[in-house]
């Protein structure tokens, strides 16, 4: 077995960069700090590629399954006799794939940010946070056990919080960062409960032990049943809640659109390509347990994914902030991945959905990062997020235009771009499992094509907009990452994923099912066509349609009032009906009781003090009366 210990360096280098930049960054020149951060990621990316090539090709004996290798592990915290938290590096197909995704996108974002964040006073802070995020994300995907994953899961959440709130003087950014953290934190509670239940029942945190099809975890799948489902199922559902929180699945998705308050490269890195797919990765990581021991939990995953994908797609059609459109699109695409995992079986052809999900994760990372970075370039040029402030930009931003178009075609599933391949696999998997979900996915495919081209036309074609100063193409340091990612978007589809990333590590034959692919392409094309008619040139059709379906439009535009529901729950219920009464209760009832006791003591003291009146005859009276009563009691009443 090959030695992969060096992979430890992949997360550790960004950590070192974080500490270096965080502690000494304020003394550096901005560019230097940017270059340091980027170079750290560069080394990481090279190591990741080397690992991937070694693992999948050069170091791999053809025809055998891809083993899962514990490259490194130390015991960190001993909890009980059975449970010990380890920190380590686990190398297996999905972690290697994620390594490649994360380092690639992160590197691109680093390079891009050198241009994008130029002149920002917190330059070094930005790069140190990016490094922190990269470290956490890499640690997450390399986790050897579920607790390590939880640790990095939290770290990822915090770096996301820090980066969303990067413009900390902007109240909306602060609010968004808080929202993101708290919503995901709430979901993480579910994750934690899931971990506690899972570890209580299986006595291990270790992924290899947990996911071993013949291991104790899956063998002990029974356990006490609760509400018709085994405890294991419940624990897996709770764990999925954590994943749903990070991956912005319904109903935890509300933080994602607001998270767009962060700098655009951050949105590209965290809220499009890497962190938000952590939920998918989590389910994929525990996939054998889900598939073999708790199919019910997997159904939950599938339905939540399916619902989220169509829900987000509908909202995306009505949003006017380009980053929010992309955010909902992200949510929709992650719904795809979740659904794909949910409909998958375990092993061989059965595991098509698993493969498709990871495949889509891979391609999605490329094209969604590209879309965000492109959007960033546009925003950089026009200093606005709103579609209405844009239009006809294709002349000013040619490179951005072309790369953006490629990304749009990719996400719409037009062959031969990579999105077509991954999406097709998902559709096939869904088709073989559940026809309703399959139908949903068809609709979503159409909607996706529609809103992406609505966005594309809105930005690069459409109305003639007058700009205060002529928009100009971004510098090379920003456009080169665009081009590289565009290259990835186009060609990533040709990777033989079905041989590399499978549910049981054994490759299988996969081919395009044209009976499913052709209609899906057609639907995509129809979506594009409608968008072309409506948005290519200024036209009144969109407004008319919006007027016709006024209520639906309003509902979708307001994101189905989910924010309001949450606000209601937090502001009204939690703050007004729980916290405020508790605080009041504490100040007045609990503390009042304490003060009351003190007050009674004082009152009693005053009352007793009054007896001491100085009136001699009163004393004598009490004395006499007391004596009489005592005599009465002791002589006659006893």
């Amino acid at each position: 077995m090959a030695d992969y210990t060096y992979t430890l360096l992949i997360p550790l280098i960004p950590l070192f960069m974080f500490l270096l930049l965080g502690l000494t960054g304020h003394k550096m020149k901005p560019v230097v700090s940017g270059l340091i951060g980027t170079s750290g990621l560069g080394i990481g990316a090279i190591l990741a590629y080397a690992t991937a090539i070694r693992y999948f090709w050069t170091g791999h004996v053809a025809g055998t399954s891809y083993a899962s290798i514990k490259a490194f592990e130390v015991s960190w915290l001993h909890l009980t006799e059975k449970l010990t938290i380890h920190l380590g590096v686990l190398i297996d197909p999905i972690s290697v794939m994620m390594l490649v995704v994360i380092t690639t996108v992160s590197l691109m974002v680093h390079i891009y940010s050198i241009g994008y964040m130029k002149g920002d006073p917190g330059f070094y802070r930005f790069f140190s946070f990016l490094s922190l995020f990269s470290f956490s994300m890499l640690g997450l995907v390399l986790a050897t056990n579920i607790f390590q994953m939880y640790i990095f899961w939290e770290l990822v959440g915090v770096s996301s919080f820090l980066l969303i709130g990067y413009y900390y003087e902007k109240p909306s950014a602060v609010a968004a960062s808080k929202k993101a953290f708290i919503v995901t934190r709430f979901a993480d509670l579910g994750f934690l409960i899931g971990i506690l239940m899972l570890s209580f029942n299986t006595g291990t945190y270790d992924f290899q032990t947990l996911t071993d099809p013949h291991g104790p975890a899956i063998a002990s799948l029974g356990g006490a049943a609760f509400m018709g489902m085994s405890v294991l199922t419940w624990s897996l559902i709770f764990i999925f809640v954590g994943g749903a929180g990070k991956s912005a699945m319904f109903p935890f998705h509300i933080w994602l659109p607001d998270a767009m308050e962060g700098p655009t490269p951050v949105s590209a890195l965290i809220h499009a390509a890497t962190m938000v797919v952590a939920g998918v990765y989590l389910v994929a990581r525990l996939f054998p347990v889900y598939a073999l021991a708790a199919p019910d939990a997997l159904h939950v995953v599938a339905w939540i994914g399916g619902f989220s994908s169509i829900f987000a797609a509908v909202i995306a059609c009505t949003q006017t902030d380009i980053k929010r459109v992309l955010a909902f699109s992200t949510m929709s695409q992650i719904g795809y991945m979740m659904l794909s995992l949910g409909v998958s079986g375990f092993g061989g052809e059965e595991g098509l959905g698993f493969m498709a999900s990871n495949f889509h994760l891979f391609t999605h990372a490329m094209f969604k990062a590209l879309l965000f970075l492109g959007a960033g370039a546009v925003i950089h040029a026009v200093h606005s997020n709103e579609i209405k402030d844009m239009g006809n930009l294709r002349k000013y931003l040619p490179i951005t235009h072309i790369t953006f178009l490629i990304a749009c075609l990719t996400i719409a599933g037009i062959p031969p771009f990579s999105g077509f391949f991954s999406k097709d696999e998902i559709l096939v998997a869904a088709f073989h499992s559940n026809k309703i979900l399959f139908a949903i996915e068809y609709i979503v495919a159409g909607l996706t094509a529609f809103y992406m081209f609505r966005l594309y036309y809105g930005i690069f074609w459409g109305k003639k907009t007058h700009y205060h100063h002529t928009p100009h193409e971004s510098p090379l340091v920003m456009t080169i990452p665009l081009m590289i990612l565009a290259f990835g978007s186009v060609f990533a589809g040709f990777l033989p994923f079905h041989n590399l990333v499978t549910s049981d590590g054994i490759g299988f034959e996969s081919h395009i099912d044209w009976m499913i692919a052709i209609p899906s392409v057609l639907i995509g094309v129809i979506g594009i066509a409608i968008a072309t008619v409506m948005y290519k040139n200024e036209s009144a059709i969109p407004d008319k349609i919006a007027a016709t379906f006024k209520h639906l439009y309003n509902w979708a535009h307001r994101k189905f009032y989910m924010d309001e529901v949450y606000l209601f729950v937090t502001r009204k219920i939690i703050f007004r009906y729980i916290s405020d009464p508790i605080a009041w209760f504490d100040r007045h009832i609990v503390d009042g009781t304490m003060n009351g006791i003190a007050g009674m003591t004082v009152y009693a003291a005053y009352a007793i003090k009054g007896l001491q009146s100085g009136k001699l005859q009163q004393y004598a009276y009490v004395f006499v009366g007391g004596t009489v009563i005592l005599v009465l009691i002791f002589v006659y009443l006893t």
Partner: protein
Amino acid sequence: MNILNLFIVIPILTVVGIVLTKDLKQSRLVSAIGMGVQMILSFILVYLYLKERATGNTAAMLFTYDALWFPTLNIHYSLGVDGISVAMIALTGIVVFAGIFASWKVTYLPREFFISLIILASGVFGFFISVDLFTMFLFYELAVIPMYLLIGIWGSGPKEYSAMKLTLMLMAGSAMLMVGILGIYFFSSPDHTHLTFNLLEISKIRIPIQMQRFLFQFTFIGFGILGALFPFHTWSPDGHASAPTAVSMLHAGVLMKLGGYGAFRVAIFLMPEAAHEQAWIFLILTSVSVVYGAFSAAVQNDLKYINAYSSVSHCGLVLFAVLMMNQTAMNGAIVQMISHGLMTALFFALIGMIYGRTHTRIIQEMGGLMKVIPFLGVVYVIAGLASLGLPGFSGFVAEMIIFTGAFQHVDVFHRVITIVAASSIVITAVYILRVVGLLLMGPIKNDHFLHLDDAKWYERISTITLVLAITAIGVAPFWLTNMINFSLAPIVEKLSAIQITSLF
């Protein structure tokens, strides 16, 4: 000379030294040196302890020292430490040291201030090294009493009220405690011939169950009041809000730990049967504390109140874990004590520093401070993140050990209540982020705040010491937990020897 005696001697010498000084500069220098030595001494103690254990010494208490003090009642001046107390001593050393630097600018009666502070500290040290219940109680009182002066004289706001409230409630706790301790004393010998106050000797016998039922409540509530057990926690917000910075630090950071430590060392250790029987009541109370404190903190507007309620929540978790009575949860309780001690001391230090600059503690009146005082801002964020349980800081370690340990309980009731308590991590995030958002981020609301100075060197010493300690535990908790585990093992063995009858 036994090293433990030094923990009493050095504060006394320091106090004498301060008496001899003339002004603020000299007295704070003497205090800083004295407490610096004390801190180093506590680290040396940790080192010596580990070394001693490494040589295979498995006695329950190390470095024991015993002198007969009052023969008629068989009271001894008896010292000794195990892994738990060593850890607590290290915590105290750090917090006191940081506290001295946080009160660098006390101008009103500085000598008296430092003397009271150090007497308080010596009480805490004495409490942790005592093996004899009587001396333990004596030191406990020694730690509580100066609090009245410190808050009543150097406090702010309604300081007389707060000082009175705090002292009276803690005294009520002491009264219950004294009943408990005397009760234990009179049942410390099965044939009533050799009554003793010695913890270890008492632990070998079995106090009659009827007495345990009665005494357990007294001792547990007595210590629980100091450990902010719901509904006896209300001294905490008022007391902390009025106390001067260093006192808040010491009080929340160390003194409240006396409650948890005592509840564990005296109440549960000596009366395990009653503890098992009555744990459920207190588990409910503590889990209420945990959640309730967090919810209360979410709507407070005064920084100190927020932190005081947060302390209620976190200290509730300590007692909660202690009551779970298994090795892991108890270990977590001790780590949580240390972690919370450091975090809350850091918080109070920062609040004091911010208050010293802005002259307000109402969060709505501040905003955007990150831009003007970046050092303090960053440290505040670190403290906040540590408090809400971010991996890499001590809070996460402690909470995770507690929750994992508590969830290992065979009883369903205990597991359910663990989930209830665990839900506090979300609410904690809510109030911490609320403060961070309102205080440090957003636009600056008051022009006066534009010209604030960032931390001075002494403030940096204070905060950096604490941050380093928090991070050290967060990154490498294993040495701490191992140290604690070793000493916990016999205690837990004793506890688990008892037949547990499930309540539900």
